[in-house]
Structure formats: C-alpha cells, structure tokens
C-alpha cells in the first residue's frame, strides 16, 4: 500500500522503520501514537501526488514541521503518513521593496529572521520555540510570542499562502498586498487550521522594519495580585510596549536554582517589559511603564538599553520553561492547559485564581507568560508516572478552562487545540462548531487530513492516544 508513496518521494525520503515511527509518534505534547510511514517530500508536486493517493486510499496524512507543538497537533492518531516538511526550507524571495518574503513551509523562524536582519527587517511573531519551529507549523497553529502585544500573532503577518487541499488540488490564497477586500479571507482560514484543511506549501509573509533601538526592564512586585493590575494599566495607558511578560515566584525560584541567578526570593512576581522605536519614544514609554509599576507597588525596577544587559533581563524569561522542569526532584513539567488568554482587564483575576486552583487541588502550577496579551502559561509540575497525579491535574485543568471562559477568555491563546483541549474548545465555540465542520467536510470529505484534531478530538484528553509516560497506579 505504501510502495506507491515510496516511489513518489524515493527510498531515501521514505521510512517505515520502527525507530523512526517511534520518534515521529510524538511531538512536544504528552501523546504518543505511531504513524504507518514517514515521508520527507521535497517538492509541491510530490505532496500533491501523496495527497491524491492518500485521498483515494483513505489514508490519514499528518503534516509536520519541527514537532514542537505542545498539543499533539502533529501526532498521528490513526497511523497514516507523516509528512515531514523540513526539507522544504528555501527562502524563495525577499522583496524589501514590497515589504514581503516568500518561503517554503520548512523554513525555521530564526533562520528567516537572520536573513532578514541584513535588510533591516524582521518577521515579528517571536515564539519561544523560534530557534527550531517552522513557518508552516507557526501558520498552522497561529503561533505568537512576546512581541505579539505590539505586532500581532502569525496571522497578522500572513499575506498569502499556497496550499495543497485534501484532494490534491494546489490553490493560491490571499494576495501580495498589505490589504485586500477581494472576497473571502481564505488565507486566514488556513491560519490556525492545525493541518486539518490543507498542507501549506508556500507562504507570503509581511515584514516589519527592525526598530532603531530597544530598551528593556524588569519590575519586582511583592504581591502577585498587583501584577495584573499594573499590566492592565500599562496596556490601557496609551502606549504599546514591544513585550510585556511576567513570571511568578515558582518560576523565579526555579530560574534562580537552575541558572544560578539571584532574583529576590521575596518577590511574588516579576514583570518584564521592552519598548522599541527611537530614543525619544523609548524614553517616554519606558518612563510611563516605570511610573505605573511604581504606582502598583513595584519595589525594584531595573532598566537597560545595553544589549548584553537586555539579554540578561530576557534570560529569565527564556529560562522559565526549562527551569520549571527542575523545580523539585520528582516533579517535571507537563504541557497541559498551558496557554489560556483573557481580556486584558481580567488578567489580575486570572493569575490570582490560577494559583487558588493549584492550592485547592494540591498541585504546583507555575505561571508566567505574555501577560500583555492577556495570555498566561500554566506550568503543571507533576510526577508523570503516577496516575493519581494525572487525575489531579485533569481536575485542575477543567477548573482553569472554566475560569478562563467565565472571564470571557479563550481556551488557547497560541499553542492551538490539537488533542488536548477539545471539550473546552467545543464549549467555548459551540456556536461556530457547525460552520467549522461544514468547512472541513467540504474541503476534506474523506477526512484524511490530520483527523481527530480540533473539534474532532476525543473529549477525554487523557485517553486521546497513549500517553508517552509509563504511568502506574
């Protein structure tokens, strides 16, 4: 059955070896489910041929970038063909005159930005995984990062896409212009579609000029509750920082220990901020942020425009994810319910209540994240080999989603739904589900493209596939 697929991509780019299958069975999420085969196509035509054949034979096809998704988006639930798109990694055009570039889906975010730097431009979304994640994966998940507060998420930088649809047809969506009102915004439909509607094979991306200058700062707070209030006041105070992040004291403690830093132990939270532009605008904005932080009780504020010192400031934030994994000997961090977002005025309620949920369920939840966008990461620290810990986590997770929705927020701010958030997503979007299903059905009548994801993911996220830990009672 897969001989034909092997013929299409050639033996070198085809594998049904058990070890390869075992590795491509998971991404950065908790899930594990083996594909039947993995292929590494090199051209759009190969992808079209694969999809046509898979559609005819009703074989699932799962597009995959770097496999850094945290929700199981690239995990093949029903086996099938994993399309590893990292070979298609050419930057096809950089057209500074039109402030755009055209790239293949396997181009890595930071590699694109390194190229663009020479022209004085950048592609803004800045996800934490930018060193490795692919543009295809970013578009499919509508990824964003610390600069989204000013420059928007990936969707705000996608002008046009070339997509292979689930029956093999190659289509061009969107335009090369900054604006368009010529019909359905179909490129946007593909953004955030998590590989369920088509394989993105080329993207036309909008670029932004690199700012003349940046300055960054960090403000320490004794009380966690003050952080949300300060952040809301910054955002509604008439300026747009280029980053506005926070971390709580679980994260502070972890970062101190793992990276030998000496952040104040008595701080319940630290707010990190950055402004970009020219000297005058930066001075004005930084000063304004400083005043707001002081007003809301910050006991220490450090500011710098020295590149090395700014690096040190951001090091704390960059270290948050890995450091929390080493918070306690027998606990590690699980990517669960990790990116709820709420309207900015509700951020304080969200942060404070997340901690209450942790305490109530006797589970350690570290919080940090792109608070300027209303997004908070929740680092669940559990022993993943004990089933009782998963049950506890499951309860806390459902409370977190209820909290976020009650505050008018959303299930996922940037990582997507994949396999891990379906019931809450379906509840949040219940009035849109019908339209989503109709669209999926119309484009993919045989349901071959990344099946069982998003609205079609199983309701019990713990049994959606095997979990990749050896869980015992």
């Amino acid at each position: 059955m897969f001989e034909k697929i092997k013929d299409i991509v050639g033996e070198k780019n085809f594998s049904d070896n058990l070890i390869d299958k075992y590795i491509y069975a998971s991404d950065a999420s908790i899930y594990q489910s083996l594909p039947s085969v993995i292929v590494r196509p090199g051209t759009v035509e190969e992808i079209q041929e694969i999809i046509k054949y898979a559609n005819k034979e009703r074989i699932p096809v799962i597009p995959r970038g770097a496999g850094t998704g945290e929700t199981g988006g690239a995990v093949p639930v029903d086996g099938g063909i994993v399309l590893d798109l990292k070979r298609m990694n050419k930057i096809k055009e950089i057209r500074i005159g039109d402030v755009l570039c055209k790239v293949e889906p396997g181009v890595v975010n930071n590699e694109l930005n390194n190229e663009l730097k020479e022209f004085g431009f950048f592609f803004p979304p800045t996800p934490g995984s930018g060193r490795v994640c692919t543009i295809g994966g970013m578009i499919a998940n509508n990824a964003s990062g610390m600069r989204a507060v000013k420059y928007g998420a990936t969707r705000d930088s996608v002008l046009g896409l070339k997509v292979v649809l689930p029956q093999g047809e190659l289509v061009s969506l969107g335009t090369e212009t900054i604006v368009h009102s010529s019909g359905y915004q179909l490129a946007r439909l593909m953004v955030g579609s998590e590989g369920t509607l088509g394989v993105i094979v080329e993207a036309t991306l909008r670029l932004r000029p690199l700012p003349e200058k940046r300055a960054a700062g960090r403000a320490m707070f004794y009380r966690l509750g003050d952080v949300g209030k300060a952040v809301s006041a910054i955002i509604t105070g008439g300026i747009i920082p280029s980053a506005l992040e926070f971390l709580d004291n679980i994260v502070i403690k972890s970062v101190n220990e793992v990276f030998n830093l000496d952040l104040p132990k008595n701080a319940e939270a630290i707010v990190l901020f950055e402004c970009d532009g020219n000297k005058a605008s930066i001075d004005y904005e930084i000063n304004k942020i400083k005043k707001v932080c002081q007003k809301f009780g910050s006991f220490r504020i450090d500011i710098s425009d020295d590149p090395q010192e700014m690096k040190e400031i951001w090091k704390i934030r960059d270290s948050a994810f890995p450091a929390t994994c080493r918070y306690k000997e027998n606990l590690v961090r699980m990517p669960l319910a990790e990116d709820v977002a709420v309207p900015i005025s509700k951020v304080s309620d969200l942060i404070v209540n997340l901690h209450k949920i942790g305490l109530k369920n006797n589970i350690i939840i570290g919080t940090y994240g792109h608070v300027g966008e209303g997004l908070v990461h929740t680092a669940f620290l559990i022993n993943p080999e004990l089933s009782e810990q998963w049950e506890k986590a499951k309860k806390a997770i459902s409370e977190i989603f209820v909290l976020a929705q009650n505050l008018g927020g959303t299930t996922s701010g940037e990582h997507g739904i994949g396999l891990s958030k379906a019931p809450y997503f379906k509840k949040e979007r219940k009035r849109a589900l019908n339209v989503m299903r109709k669209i999926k059905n119309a484009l993919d009548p045989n349901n071959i493209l990344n099946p069982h994801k998003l609205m079609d993911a199983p309701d019990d996220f713990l049994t959606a596939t095997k979990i990749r830990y050896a869980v015992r009672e």
Partner: protein
Amino acid sequence: METKHLEKWKKEMLVCIKCAYCFGDCPIYSQLGWESASARAKMILSYGLLTKGIEYTDSILENFFQCTTCKQCELNCPAKVKILDVIEAARKDLVDNGYCYPAHKLMREVVEKSGNIYGEEKRKKESVQKGAEYALFVGCVGTYREDESIKRTIKLLKKLGVSFTRFDEVCCGGVFPYVGLDNYQKNVQHNKEEIKKTGAKKLLTTCPMCYRTFKNNPEYSDLGVEVVHITQLLNKLNIDVKTDKVVTYHDPCDLGRHLGIYEEPREIIKKFASHFVEMDKNRENAHCCGAGGGVRGAFTRLSINMAKNRLKEALNTKADVLLTECPSCLHNFKNAKKKRQRIQIYNISEYLSILMDRGKKNEDL
C-alpha cells in the same frame, strides 16, 4: 533488555521538554535529516528502552552509536539535560546486553593485544631522555595514522627547547566509555607506571581526547602529574615565525566544548599569522569534524561526510590553511579533502615546524 545504567538518568529523560533545540548544529542530524537522528530522539528512545515501551532492534543500536559525542546538543539544550550521560548509559546497557558494533569490539580486542587501537606493532620511541620536565603522550591516531604530523610536532618541541621525553605509552582508553566498553585496566596501570618512571612533573598530550582522559577520567585521578595540552604549552613560548597566508582554525570538540580551551590556540595562531579568519561556526558553536564517539570506526562514510561539511565551511572563509590541534580531526579532514581543494590542513604545532623550516629553506608553504 536490562537497563541498569539508564535507570540512573531517568530524571534527565523526563526533564527533556522536547523543544528540539538540539536539532540545530547536530552534525549527525544535519547529515541524516530524520528526527530520529537527533538528541531529542535519543532521549525518547532511552525512556522507551527503560520503561519497556520499545524493544531492542538493530536500528536502536545504530541510532545510539550514531553520535560523535560532540556535545553541541548539550550546549544548545535550554533544560540542561545531561544528554551525553544518557547516551553513554544507553550504550553501556546495549553492550552489557551483548549488542556491540563489531568495529568497537575489535578495537577493544586489538588494544588488549597490541596496546593501540589499530593493532599495529609497537613503534620504537625516540626522544627518550631522563630528567625531562614533560612526559609526552602522543596517542594512537598520532602515532599510527598521523605520524608525519607528529614527527613535525616533536621537531618543533625540540627546536623550542622544550624538555620532554617519550615513554612506552599504550592506548589511554579514553574512547572506551564512549562506546559502552570498559577500559583495559592493564593499559591504565601500564601508562601510570611508565609516566612515573620518567620522573616528569607534567604530562604533555597532543591529542585532546587523551588530554581529556588523563585529566578527567577517574581511572587516572591518581596520576600525580599535571596534565597539559600542547596548545597550552605553545601559547607560553616565544614563537618567532610569520606567515602571510590566510589561516583559519577548527576547534576540536574535546578541546573546545568538552574542556573550554578556545583561546590558547587562537592566541598562538595570531602570533604568527597576520590574516586569521574565523569560520562562521566557531568556539562553542564549531561544527564537529565527525571523527569522535566511535563514529569513524562504525560509520566511516557518515564520518567523512561530516568532515566534508566542516571542510566546506573552512573553504568558505577563503583560507589557504586550515589549522587544528587534534590528530583525529586532522586525519578526518585529510580523508575528506578532494584533490582539487587547494586548502592545506595541519595541526598548529606541525605547521609551526614547517614555517620554521621554511625560514631555513626559503620554501613557499
């Protein structure tokens, strides 16, 4: 499969956040392109073996041994996962269960018989003297595969008036733990005794791997002499030659990422070469030459392809001369070099000796 060595490192496998930062610059992943070649995959497979999620197959053996132990992944890893400890533990467990690469097994056998990894007849050691400051340890690759280069190094040491003696050395055994095998204790003992006999206060090594072994391997912890790499010594000496050639430098993984010696070689080169250029990937980001971790023995073509890749990076600098200070890197680069590629490849000490002779013979080197 029994996994008693992996058991110790379970936390590291669990701490791995699957971020894939370790894909970047991994020489094996760059060559093979499949995610399974990466350090992340090795963490997943280790956990799979440990928890019986996956059974042994020959591909597992291949997977764990396709790693040059270059340490690039550990430097890139934000979670500071002790990747190499996990990989070494997996290799030990594989070997303990009877799964071993024939090339490695053979290497162990010939070392036992002959005292060197190539099974060659012992060569007579010249430059033996009493009361020397340094005991010089050359190592297997230098002695049996890069002897011309080593002859030059020795000539240089003499010329610079370094007080050294050679001795009846046998393989230091540094490679064995990296391929899951135990060192041959008789050799360890032999080296210790021979070093003692020289009366030297310091042990001078030319090979970074041997340097690392004598310095860090617990089996040699009672050596009782200071261990010095030749770049550390040369950097202190007065070097009185010059070249106009464009020169670049390759950091051997054992010397750089493993031991943090980045500056000494550069300082030496800058004393005699006015046109020194760095490769894009240098110091802790220097790409591996592909020789280490038992890869050259078990996967020769893969190893050479990595060297070709690094050589291309050297050629991109437009350098006339590629310098390093490691017989293994040197050997791999020479094997990878095509005739039409005009770049010259030497160890620093070798090149210095050539430059000194040029002074005499007026040759254009």
